């Protein structure tokens, strides 16, 4: 991904979908976005990952021309988001956190109106509405007003509304928050399909597995800043070491096992559960020594496993307590 990005840089700047430099947005005393730089290559899925209130939505609002930045600048396919708002709006579509559809109208009416506004003729807009309702499994509810829709149905209609004309850059603000697991997987499939047909996706999420599953690159946002950026693999590698999990056969061996870990690996182990001892593992070779030591202590194991660092750990390390928060940049 890193190499691909540099090649793209060399080719021409328009292959960059989003380029933001020093974006700032303040609300009163609160610096909601505090100097954010982003470079998003065309054709990728880029995730902004961060806790609630980190500034993700504010970043999206500035990139989508809904909010004027107080500092810095941003370009979408080379077009300034403040000076060329109307061009930028022709290149993007936005699916926000709250379903941006009209509750008092039916699904078909919503889609038809958005289609007409995007310049489709009445018959084209009607036809496109039908196609999208089919695609998103809403055809049975086409004529009902949204007041009778479930949350999931609204989200699907919201995404459908953003896809009447497929934009080169699609913003998805927490696209799967509040969706059931099945609908969530469907949403992921839709996102992958959009990328394969040429769109760039910028999504925000609080779910680390979502970023892990979907994103080519991730920016971890905290307190309005980018605290880490890279591929999910790079981020994991930067923070963590793998974790060694030792599941004990006998509960009373926990203390002995922890002592052995301390002695052989030279790190402090912990027991998150009675029969489980975990320890950060820097050097896999030393695990052999540890297992030999445990054997000689007559500590029996039920299972041994090595766990790669999860984005959760990355996330906690980066956005959690400042004292232990390692910043790999």
């Amino acid at each position: 991904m890193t190499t691909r990005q540099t090649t793209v840089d060399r080719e021409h700047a328009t292959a960059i979908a989003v380029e933001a430099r020093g974006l700032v947005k303040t609300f009163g005393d609160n610096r909601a976005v505090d100097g954010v730089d982003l470079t998003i290559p065309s054709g990728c899925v880029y995730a902004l990952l961060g806790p609630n209130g980190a500034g993700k939505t504010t970043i999206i609002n500035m990139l989508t021309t809904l909010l004027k930045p107080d500092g810095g600048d941003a370009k979408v396919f080379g077009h300034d988001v403040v000076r060329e708002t109307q061009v930028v709006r022709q290149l993007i579509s936005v699916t926000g956190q709250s379903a941006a559809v009209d509750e008092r109208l039916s699904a078909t009416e919503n889609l038809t109106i958005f289609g007409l506004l995007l310049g489709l003729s009445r018959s084209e807009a009607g036809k496109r509405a039908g196609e999208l309702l089919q695609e998103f499994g809403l055809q049975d509810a086409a004529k009902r007003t949204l007041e009778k829709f479930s949350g999931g149905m609204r989200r699907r209609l919201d995404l459908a509304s953003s896809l009447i004309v497929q934009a080169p850059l699609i913003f998805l603000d927490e696209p799967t928050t509040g969706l059931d697991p099945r609908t969530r997987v469907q949403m992921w499939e839709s996102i992958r399909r959009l990328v394969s047909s040429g769109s760039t996706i910028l999504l925000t999420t609080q779910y680390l597995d979502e970023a892990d599953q979907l994103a080519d690159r991730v920016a971890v946002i905290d307190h309005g800043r980018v605290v880490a950026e890279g591929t999910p693999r790079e981020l994991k590698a930067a923070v963590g070491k793998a974790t060694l999990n030792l599941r004990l056969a006998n509960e009373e061996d926990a203390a002995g096992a922890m002592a052995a870990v301390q002695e052989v690996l030279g790190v402090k182990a912990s027991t998150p559960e009675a029969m489980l001892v975990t320890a950060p593992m820097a050097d896999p070779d030393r695990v052999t020594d540890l297992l030999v030591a445990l054997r000689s202590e007559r500590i029996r194991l039920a299972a041994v496993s090595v766990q790669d660092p999860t984005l959760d750990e990355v996330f906690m390390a980066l956005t959690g307590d400042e004292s232990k928060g390692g910043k790999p940049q």
Partner: protein
Amino acid sequence: MSGQIVPGGSRKLKNRVSPQAVIGNSLTMAYRTLLLIRRTPQQLFDVTIQPILFTLMFTFLFGGAISGSVSGYLPIIIPGILAQTAITASMATGVQLREDMDKGVFYRFKSMPIARIAPLAGPLLADIVRYSIATALTFTMGYLLGFHWVSPGAALLAGFLAVFAAWCLGWVFALLGVLAKTAQTVQGISAAIIFPLGFLSGAFVPTETLPRWLQDFVNVNPLTYVVSAVRQLLDQGTIGTDFWLSLIGSTVLVLVFAPVTLKMYMRKA
């Protein structure tokens, strides 16, 4: 959704909306407003129930007291109700605009490549339909009660004047709608404007019966001129100074309030 889309970097796009798109977008937004009215017909109460109820109520309540008979009062009250319902209907413009701007769908409109003005212009266009319903119903009620106008052409012109005046006043309430924080605020302030404007005019009583100081107010109340102009058209079928003053006054209202409303709206949109 088959095949590849045109890459964002190789599109040739203009950073402005064509005049055709402005008109097209506004008409679509007007269509949307009409759809909303069809979905919630309660929105039409102010332009349906009110003209019917007010005409019946005022005619029989005040007819005898003010003019000695119901038929004698009709030439006074019908133009009055016409103006009164038209301006009350224009009040809803602001309330509904505020409610609309608070809805999630506005978020989408803002990020779409459409004319910024369309979500404001659309409802104002659609309101013409509402004002026309109110005007037509008032005429119908008057006709049923035995009111006769001089000529259908003059009645049509009177109706047009009422609708036009309401539409122009609608911009004042639209500005309120854009500026206010909640729909209730708009409702409250609008009512405080509408009631004195409506009742302290020549709409319901002959102005000669009023105390001197009130007459002064009534004489500067623009609605008085609209009512007089409508009355003259219906009674005599002629166009007088009041007609032109109403027309000019309403136009001035639009020329002042439309740009301010637009500016304030664009600041938020």
